[in-house]
């Protein structure tokens, strides 16, 4: 191997690093080889001194990693010292933090989609949404009925301004209960997706159902049967609904495609 091929080989293995840095390094290696040849070695010997080219490339990249961390740290230090000198910048820091937070949220959503949803089809995602909306709506109905019943009683028992106040408080309490149930449903959805990765009423709700119905009933066949029955009904309804929606989407796509063709 001669000097040129050695340098070219090494350079090709360092293509992940900054080009300028690599240029700098290659100049130094070539200088070293020239010096060694001047000292009486052959070109071959001078290059052999470097040993295995892969090991060398690995060590260079390894050494480079350390200073990459350094360069990442230094600008941070600068910004912090700047903010010490000029407290006016604190508002921009808050904005920076906010932007960072929003970015993190988006990252999280992206990761969540990638981890749990990307393997699902559009139909399955629609199904998931329908189940979610259905669950949220269904849970509102008994709550609303109970609320209505309580207010009905309050109307009889209390009078005037107190009545309005009590109704107001009851309304707030029921809304809080509703919010909590939405959170619970969301968590059970999250857990169902994380554990099974399947869009199915039973997988999405079985674990919280079991949890709420008490661990002693775990072998209770009737609970499971009810869940399965509900699951079947909801599954068929939701599947038909999601299929219909999928059809609509497909047709819409066709239409736009047709329009585009006609336009051309």
């Amino acid at each position, binding site marked *: 191997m001669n000097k040129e091929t050695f340098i070219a080989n090494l350079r090709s293995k360092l293509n992940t690093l900054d080009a300028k840095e690599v240029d700098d390094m290659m100049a130094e290696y070539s200088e070293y080889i020239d010096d060694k040849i001047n000292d009486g070695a052959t070109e071959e010997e001078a290059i052999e001194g470097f040993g295995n080219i892969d090991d060398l490339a690995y060590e260079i990249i390894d050494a480079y990693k350390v*200073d990459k961390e350094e360069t990442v740290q230094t600008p941070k230090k600068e910004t912090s010292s700047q903010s010490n000198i000029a407290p006016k910048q604190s508002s921009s820091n808050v904005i920076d933090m906010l932007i960072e937070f929003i970015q993190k949220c988006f990252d999280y959503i992206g990761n969540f989609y990638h981890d749990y949803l990307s393997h699902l089809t559009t139909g399955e995602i629609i199904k998931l949404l329908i189940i979610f909306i259905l669950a949220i709506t269904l849970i509102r109905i008994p709550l609303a009925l109970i609320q209505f019943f309580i207010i009905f009683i309050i109307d009889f028992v209390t009078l005037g301004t107190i009545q309005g106040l009590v109704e107001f408080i009851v309304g707030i309490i029921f809304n809080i209960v509703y919010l909590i149930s939405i959170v619970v449903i969301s968590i059970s959805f999250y857990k169902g997706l994380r554990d099974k990765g399947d869009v199915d009423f039973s997988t999405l709700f079985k674990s919280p159902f079991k949890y709420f119905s008490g661990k002693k009933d775990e072998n209770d066949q009737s609970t499971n049967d009810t869940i399965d029955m509900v699951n079947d009904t909801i599954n068929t309804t939701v599947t038909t609904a999601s299929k219909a929606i999928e059809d609509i989407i497909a047709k819409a796509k066709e239409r736009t495609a047709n329009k585009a063709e006609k336009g051309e």
Partner: protein
Amino acid sequence: MNTQFKKGVLELVVMEVVSRHDIYGYELVKQVCEVVHVNEGTIYPLLKRMTNEEYFETYLKESSEGPSRKYYRITVKGLEQLIELKKEWLEFSYSVNQFFKEGIKDE
């Protein structure tokens, strides 16, 4: 020699060589290799890292024969680090040597 030994002591030897006088790559590698027999290729990444850590600084200097060379010079930060490392090394090697001497006495 054990490569783990070499790796640990190489940084110290390189710093010591540069601290004695400003030096260019080839000469440095030659001097270091007289003390620690390492692959010549491993010294350059180390030099790069230590320059980035601001232990060394570089400058170009015309040579009597051929093009200008890149010289390495130790910085104040580098000197401080060298003193610290040297101290550590002396203490460490002393205690290891003492430990071996005790073994010989016991036998």
